[in-house]
């Protein structure tokens, strides 16, 4: 286990330099930076973590401040612009042997002045400086007295981030796009978004916005409405009929084939096309957008806006071959021959079975799955739905099914879930929306049997009540059936919506691409290990830092089929990373991650947001909410009009004003 020499992280001082009994300290950092080089120190917004006593703290801090001041300080407030420069020059003077002891006092004084700064970047940079001058004063004084550095050379790698930006799976520079809105620069805002997110109209509407759970404004009052601000920037361009400004670089020779025109495939195609690569997407469906197009209802994501985003991607030269199912209309082998690289992003469009008696009997009215039902509805195909619809599941797909069923003419639309409402994985606002539209709910029940008549038509479903049992290993109390509580609900349609996975049958075994038992594609990763020697995993249980190349040279994978079914934004992040890796691969630069990507992964594991931080700010501006259409008629027959209406611009500017701009810089010594 890596031993911490010194730490001031989180204002908790652990100092093991003097010997004696070693005080333990543990951080969610890998023991190596890249699987090989030990991570010797980490400094950042909340202090210093020193693993190797040979790290020259004055030199590291001088370098930290220099990078902060010359590369990241925005210059938009006096203490930030000038104060960090005064500190930087003082630190530089000291390590060059030209410093004075008074410089240390000046540094501490200016660190204090930085508390008046406009945003969080400069004050947070002052934290490790203040800690160093306080706890490593001798080291500075040695320099001032003319001592030369005796310690080894280290490489320093820094990363500019923010809690929201870190938490966003696509790592959008959220503070930048919010600041642009504050300045009425919707164009610059959208530019910042598009740097990491080529489907802004989509992620401005349907993103589960994990960023908002890591918003520091939450520590003051409520988080910033980050998602709707993104929609504002995106809608502004559309509502003002502006042409997107992106221009691809000069055309390159090597082409890329992408399997699937979903969020991951489109994102990869977009960034590769911008780099000048010819990209062809092979899409099994007649339309693009993947799960956004056939999973998310149009009242949440208007199709013309999804199409606008896709059109913009195509305008960069991306070709989309629709109705072309890889494995049927063209083989993966052929793709591999045709293109210099192939990116697999087929998504997860296969419904999982429910495991209920009678589900395999082929009864009329028992539909194969929620995602199939939605796809048919959106493509205008017969859905097989009757008048009394019964949906099983607790996720967003289940909610979409009950709400779409109403719009497809269901007289009754019921959702059953085995746990309680509070435990539904679906987003709260989605459940509330369904409630508002007249959906019926049955909680803590489990379907046990499909009931059909002699004509093999579904007539009802048998259910059993569930009660919470003892907590399991995860601490969650598992629902267990209550014997004898069976009852029957009449219905003519049952839609199981309990999850989906990827259909990977198009990948021939001989290519040697590994897959998991959850039907996901395995990709290579950086072997990062924690202090306990275990591999570091991300929140989906996948290796933390992945290169997205499969075991087969030239074939990469991403999106739901690589991560496991997740979110649009995660797939876009995955597609973006894949594009960068593929570009390096095609340029013959290998497939290793860049420092920026490594730090991105390390920090996302480390955590940039601290929900316990006391953020001092006057809570006088409350969160703005978007307006929406009310009343049951919004879910009337075939009414797929958008329910949520976004912000008016002045409201967006007010909301943007609330942002605390929580940029910060972390830096490692390796």
């Amino acid at each position, binding site marked *: 286990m890596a031993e911490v020499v010194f730490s001031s992280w989180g204002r908790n001082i652990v100092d093991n330099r003097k010997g004696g009994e070693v005080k333990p300290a543990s951080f969610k950092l890998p023991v190596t930076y890249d699987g090989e080089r030990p991570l010797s120190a980490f400094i950042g917004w909340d202090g210093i973590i020193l693993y190797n006593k040979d790290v020259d703290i004055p030199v590291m801090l001088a370098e930290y401040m220099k990078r902060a001041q010359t590369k990241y300080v925005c210059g*938009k407030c006096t203490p930030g612009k000038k104060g960090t420069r005064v500190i930087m020059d003082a630190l530089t003077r000291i390590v060059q042997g030209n410093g004075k002891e008074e410089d240390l006092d000046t540094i501490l004084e200016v660190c204090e002045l930085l508390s008046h700064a406009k945003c969080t970047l400069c004050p947070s940079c002052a934290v490790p400086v203040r800690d160093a001058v306080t706890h490593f004063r001798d080291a500075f004084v040695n320099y001032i007295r003319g001592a030369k550095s005796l310690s080894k050379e280290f490489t320093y790698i820094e990363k500019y981030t923010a809690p929201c930006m870190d938490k966003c799976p696509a790592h959008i520079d959220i503070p930048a796009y919010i600041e642009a809105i504050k300045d009425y620069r919707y164009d610059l805002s959208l530019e910042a978004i598009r740097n990491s997110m080529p489907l802004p109209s989509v992620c401005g509407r349907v993103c589960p916005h994990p960023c908002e759970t890591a918003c520091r404004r939450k520590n003051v009052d409520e988080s910033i409405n980050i998602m709707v601000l993104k929609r504002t920037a995106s809608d502004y361009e559309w509502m003002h*009929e502006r042409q997107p400004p992106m221009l691809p670089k000069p055309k390159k020779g090597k082409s890329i084939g992408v399997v699937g025109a979903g969020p991951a495939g489109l994102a990869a195609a977009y960034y590769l096309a911008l780099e000048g690569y010819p990209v062809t997407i092979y899409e099994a469906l007649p339309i693009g957008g993947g799960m956004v197009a056939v999973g998310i209802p149009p009242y949440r994501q208007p199709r013309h806006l999804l199409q606008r985003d896709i059109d913009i991607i195509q305008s960069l030269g991306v070709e989309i071959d629709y109705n072309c199912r890889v494995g049927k209309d063209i083989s993966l082998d052929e793709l591999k021959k045709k293109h210099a690289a192939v990116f697999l992003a087929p998504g997860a469009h296969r419904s999982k079975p429910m495991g209920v008696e009678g589900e395999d009997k082929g009864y009329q009215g028992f539909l194969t799955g929620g995602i199939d039902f939605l796809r048919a509805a959106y493509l205008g195909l017969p859905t097989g739905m009757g008048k009394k619809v019964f949906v099983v599941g607790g996720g967003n797909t289940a909610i979409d099914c009950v709400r779409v069923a109403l719009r497809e003419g269901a007289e009754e639309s019921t959702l059953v879930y085995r746990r309680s409402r509070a435990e539904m994985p679906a987003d709260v606002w989605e459940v509330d929306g369904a409630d508002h539209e007249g959906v019926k709910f049955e909680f803590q029940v489990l379907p046990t049997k499909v009931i059909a008549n002699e004509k093999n038509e579904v007539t009802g479903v048998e259910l059993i009540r569930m009660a919470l049992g003892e907590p399991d290993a995860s601490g969650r109390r598992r629902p267990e059936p209550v014997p004898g509580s069976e009852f029957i609900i009449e219905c003519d349609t049952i839609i199981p919506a309990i999850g989906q996975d990827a259909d990977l049958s198009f990948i021939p075994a001989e290519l040697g691409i590994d897959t998991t038992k959850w039907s996901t594609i395995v990709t290579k990763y950086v072997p990062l290990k924690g202090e306990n020697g275990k591999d570091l995993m991300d929140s989906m249980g996948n290796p933390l830092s992945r290169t997205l190349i499969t075991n087969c040279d030239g074939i990469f994978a991403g999106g739901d089929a690589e991560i496991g079914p997740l979110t649009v934004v995660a797939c876009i992040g995955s597609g973006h990373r894949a594009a960068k890796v593929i570009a390096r691969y095609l340029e013959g630069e290998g497939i290793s991650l860049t420092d920026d990507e490594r730090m991105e992964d390390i920090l996302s594991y480390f955590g940039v947001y601290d929900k316990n931080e006391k953020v001092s700010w006057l809570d006088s501006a409350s969160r703005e909410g978007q307006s929406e259409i009310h009343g049951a008629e919004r879910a009337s027959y075939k009414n797929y009009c958008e329910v949520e209406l976004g912000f008016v611009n002045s409201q967006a500017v007010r909301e943007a004003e609330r942002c605390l701009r929580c940029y910060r810089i972390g830096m490692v010594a390796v």
Partner: protein
Amino acid sequence: MVSLTIDGKSVQVEKGTTILEAAATVGIKIPTLCWLKKVSPTGACRVCAVEVEGVDRTMTACNTPVKEGIKVTTDTPALKEARKKIMELMLVNHPLDCPVCDAGGECDLQDSCYGLGATRQEYSAVLERRPIRYDWPILESDPNRCILCEKCVKVDHEVVGCNAIEVVDRGEATIIDTVDGKPLNCEFCGNCAAVCPTGALITKSFKFKGRPWSFARVQSVCNFCGSGCQIEYHAKEGRVMRVTSDDATFNDGNLCINGRFGYSYLESPERLTTPMVKDGSGKLAICDWKTAISTAAGKLKEIVSRDGAAAVAGLGSPRVTNEESFLFQKFLKGAVGTGNVDSEAGLGFAQAQALMAEKFGFTGTSATIDTIDKAQAIIVFGTDLNAEATNVEYRVIKAATKNDAKLILANMRDVKLKKFANKNLKYLPGSELSLIYALMKAILESGAPLPAGAEALKADLDAVTLTDLAAQCGIPADSIAQAGKLIAGKERVALIFGSDVIRSQQAAAKVAALADLAVIAGANRENGGVFPLDPKNNTVGLLDMGVAPAASAQGLWGIVEGIEKGSIKALYLMGCDLAGFPESARMKKALAKLELLIVQDIFHNDSLPFADVVFPAAAAAEKSGTFTSSDNRVQPLAKSINAPGDARDDAAILADLYTAYTGTTQKGSHWAIFCELEDATPYKESNGSYRKAAPAVKSAHAFAPVAKAAASAQGKLQLLVGAIGFHNGTSTTRSENNLSVSPAGYIELHHTDAVSLGIKDGGQVKLSSAAGSVTGTAKVSDKVQPGLLFAPVHFRDLNANGALLGNSNIVEVKVEKA
């Protein structure tokens, strides 16, 4: 309302008010430096930091909204110390060239340092100097003096809507620069330099002209467009050295290039400085005023006694004051006895205004232009506001960006407002009527209530399809339908229109249709507004004063015909260069035919060679009087400097001429004339300023039947002549400042036409119409459309008006490589 306490005083303000604004309501002044009322708060300087009980850090008063019950302290020893130290940080490496800095004496940084007690420097950093941008036209940027308050960037973006400059680079290297790092290339309104608190952004024309306190300052009114911006002349040694505008003015201190820099025309070598009369050899010879006046009066009397008063005509000017216009028409109509009086307003604006008066009862605009700020939907039809009324454009930008207004733009060209428009309806030349009807139809189809009396119009509109109308104007029907949706149901609607309608072919029908559109859109309702605009400063005043043909007398074209037929023998041109009007070749011929031509002007102009008597006149900065803005504000201008040489103000000249002609003394002072005209005009005074009394509002609107649109000229090339933002009229083409960024005319054409005609950007192109030909440099640009060429009206060398026929600003032309 929110209640809070500031420094122990209790304050009640509206929700959303900032602490700074709340403090001001009870007379507590919190120091600021980067705060500027007219733009969004920046919070850059941190000088306004205050303490709020229960909040551990300081909050900036300028951008923190109030909260119920908070206790704010604005002045504590800790705050004093923090502000002082922040100022010290701001001064780190600030240049010490205050003695020669343009801002010295009016520098907010100096004042703040002094006020906040930053009397010594405790901090230091390695000195880095950034290059001074001497390579920008009109402005100069010294980033070393910049304190990054961002006022310039915000004014540029939020007020002007221009995005020419931005904050670039990082850390101590952060500066304000052009977006692309190239020399500044913008509309050069100078509003950025005007708000610069230091000497970082300065104007070249003012540099080293004197210390700020050494100028004589007078408040006046801008004399270029009809926005009526309030300005201040700074003069020294008999020269205007700069023009500024205070943020407390009606125009929020915002000007355009003409208002701020156009003053350099005052020193043009083309200024007329001495009276002249034609001598025996037919040449103009310098003379004294007495000779000039008596020659003019004598010849006029001779002609009137021989041929009658109808043989005399006069053309006035929208550039002169109300008093001068009043006296001009009084002289001609009263003393001479001729009704043949007109001006360039006779090219269309006078007729449009008469139509508005007939339909609605108002002249000028129906509401003041600040009404536009709060409009929810704005239709800007047939005008490039940037060129015709820049401050009206700023209002539209404000409404669209800050107040959520929907903007519908209808223009043949892409104009600056396009980037703010929700719908840019780029219509085919001449298809205005179809577009107006299409918009009416779209608004009604979007559920707007049918106004009383519009049943017949509705029936006419029902007889045509939106698709057909849209096809006639070359716009997708869907776009027009969406525009209708954006307008329908809005409470506050503004309809703004200008030259491309007012001076179009079939203008009467189009303006009448626009009036009907105004009613259907609801722009005639309270809080809305109908804004017909003319690009000159006192066109409305000129018409108010009666510089218009008397009943049964000749207007502009009648006068020209009269000269041609020989029935009109004497012409008095006051501030009117008839030789530069449409059909200029014909005009020159007519001028040559006159027995007596009196030219009264501030410049040598193209009519001058035909003059028998020349009166040199004073420009706006050289006299007093009043101008009436497009929106009916009657505003006084004040004399800043003396006119050059023997030039005199028009009122004095007119009074002398009147006296000489009639033998009765006419007073020539502006105040005397104002008192005289006040009896004749419904002016009313409020808060020390004059405004025309509100006209009687007509209760019932008479809708015009749907008029038949003239056959479109598709496949033929048309030349549109109009204003550009860098100039106003021909005056600014004598201004060095304006010429430094817009030196010459050009002919703009679409790349498809350029290709088919084999014309290259920068090559010479010749346009010929039935009126004459124009040759100029080609500028290939897709701001126009295939089949449409555009030429700026201002440049006498290009003389784009020479190709125009009649009142219309658009004409069919043959285009060839020159």
